[in-house]
């Protein structure tokens, strides 16, 4: 694994002001992103995964602010940025983003060539023929054939999967160092999803990008991620290599997420689901945020926030279950269906 850190988040706290009440969306997250890796951030809606990555680009809504902590990137602390002109050096140029819904993230009134050209003109000063050549290159890179014709077309002339390719083209147009993909395949068919995932993997390799991939579906990230961070209620509860998270997960929340995947379900049996709802982030959370929904919760879980326990140097888990004094709890039996041998689940 490459060890050079490109983005380093320390004790980040993000709060929002909602109708006079304060919502504590990110609760003390620390995270290192290494150069050239693909990191997946997984969590339910409302777990703060999108908010976390929005802080990297200065895209928090007006009612939100970074309360404390630092985000080191390229020798600068992004958490200290106040003015828009600071962000213009970073946003789109060094860190770029692909959003969930390709139907809404493109301008319907501009040809896609112009939309990619905008990014090139703004960040690299490319104009005219040079810009045109570059646009065609990029379109080919994202798998759009016949770019000379296609660049003159408008978003409505593209299918959902093709539009997402265009969005990706805009994101990589300026050779960013970091590419953030926020649920890029949620709005797409399974077959198109597989193609887009393949495309992202290929581009990451070709352009030596660092990729942060956000999703709620653990089933999807096995394809793209080198490392996985599992978020719950504004905090990272488990982080490790893809193999560690899938083959030997340790946090009960990761267990619950994995075992609720329909891919692992057996027909005629109940699919395991997580009871209850995530805690309200308006109120102070005492102890482990997952404790009320955790069937294996210990008394201390309700009193004190567990520290990170190191399972291996790359695998950290925030759960009291890993304390030497804790009783031994076995992961759900269904997880043994994910086996290291690369055969399909359906071959049985």
């Amino acid at each position, binding site marked *: 694994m490459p060890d050079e850190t490109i983005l380093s988040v320390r004790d980040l706290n993000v709060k929002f002001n909602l109708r006079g009440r304060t919502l504590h969306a990110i609760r003390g997250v620390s995270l290192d992103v290494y150069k050239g890796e693909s990191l997946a951030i997984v969590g339910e*809606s409302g777990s703060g995964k999108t908010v976390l990555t929005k802080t990297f680009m200065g895209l928090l809504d007006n009612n939100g602010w970074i309360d404390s902590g630092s985000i080191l990137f390229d020798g600068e602390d992004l958490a200290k940025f106040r003015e828009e002109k600071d962000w213009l050096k970073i946003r789109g140029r060094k860190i770029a983003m692909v959003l969930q819904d390709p139907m809404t993230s493109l301008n319907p009134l501009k040809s896609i060539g112009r939309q990619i050209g905008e990014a090139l003109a703004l960040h690299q000063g490319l104009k005219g023929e040079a810009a045109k050549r570059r646009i065609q290159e990029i379109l080919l890179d994202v798998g759009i054939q016949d770019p000379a014709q296609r660049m003159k077309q408008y978003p409505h002339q593209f299918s959902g999967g093709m539009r997402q390719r265009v969005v990706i083209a805009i994101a990589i147009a300026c050779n960013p160092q970091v590419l953030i993909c926020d649920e890029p395949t949620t709005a797409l068919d399974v077959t198109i999803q597989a193609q887009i995932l393949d495309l992202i993997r290929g581009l990451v390799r070709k352009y030596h990008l660092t990729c942060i991939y956000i999703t709620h579906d653990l089933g999807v990230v*096995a*394809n793209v991620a080198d490392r996985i961070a599992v978020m719950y209620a504004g905090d990272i509860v488990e982080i490790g290599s893809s193999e560690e998270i899938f083959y030997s997960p340790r946090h009960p929340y990761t267990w619950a997420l994995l075992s609720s*995947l*329909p*891919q692992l379900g057996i027909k005629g049996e109940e699919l395991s689901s997580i009871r209850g709802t995530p805690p309200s982030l308006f109120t102070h959370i005492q102890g482990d945020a997952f404790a009320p929904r955790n069937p294996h919760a210990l008394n201390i879980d309700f009193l004190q926030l567990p520290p990170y326990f190191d399972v291996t140097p790359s695998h950290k888990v925030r759960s009291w279950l890993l304390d030497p004094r804790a009783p031994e709890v076995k992961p759900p039996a269904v997880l043994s269906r994910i086996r290291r041998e690369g055969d399909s*689940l*359906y*071959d049985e």
Partner: protein
Amino acid sequence: MMSEHSPLLRVDNLKVAFGERRKRFNAVNGVSFDIHRGETFGLVGESGSGKTSIGRAIIRVYPTAGGQVLYKGQRISGRIDKALDRQVTREIQMIFQDPMASLNERAKVGYIVAEGLYATQKGLTSAQREEKVREALLDVGLLHEFASRFPHEFSGGQRQRIGIARALIMQPEFIIADEPISALDVSIRAQVLNLLSQLQKKRGLTYLFISHDLSVMRFICDRIAVIHKGVLVELAETEELFRCPLHPYTQLLLSAIPMPNPAHERNKTVLTYDEGMHDYSVDKPLWCEISPGHFVLGNQRELDNYKKCRLDLGIPQVTG
């Protein structure tokens, strides 16, 4: 009246078309299948394959352009008399994809759930209606107090439960679930899937489950039909389809399922499917029952190949 073995619903050479003469587009082009009482029948395909159009033609939202739909042996497509129309409206219900969009934001949950009763059972007193709403909400695991709240106060999973309660209150026999879980978080999906199968056991419901995701279908469906560009290409019992997918398009769909397994994912290749690979110029494709209950579309040469594949069942997945 009707024998135990006749299907609850029969779709016979169904065609659905949009647009006028010259710009006519056949979204569904001659689809036939039976759905038996108490089973969950899956319809899988990509966007634009016509799977939703079939569902809507069955529930009489879209007119049929050809063929017919038989419900309990009676034709329900085209012109039908009022009594039958009322019966169909009550007994066939639909669950929609996006619970954020399918509930009236301005109405209270109690009204949303009861709305069907206002239309079909006009004689009910408000107390009776409230009682029915209470039962329906309990059935889907919601508290009856929720009846006085508005949809925006609920999470996505709860909203989908409201959508299911709205269908249940009509005492339906047949439910069309059009991508009921694709807009939901994975953790909520499990809850909704469990709820659907519990309700089926308790009430003997029959489902038509429409989705683009085969991994979900394997968990819930008894039989699955694969549709591509308005034509069925394969139909089989779920286990059979997963063990022995014959049509190349089915194989593509199977290969696209993301697996929660890094070792498997890194080595996998997603297959591609191009209709041009079939040479149907001379040898026309047939819808053929290749083994009991397993239908596949192909011409004579392809069918012979498929039969051979079935014989070498030692290799469950045909690659290439």
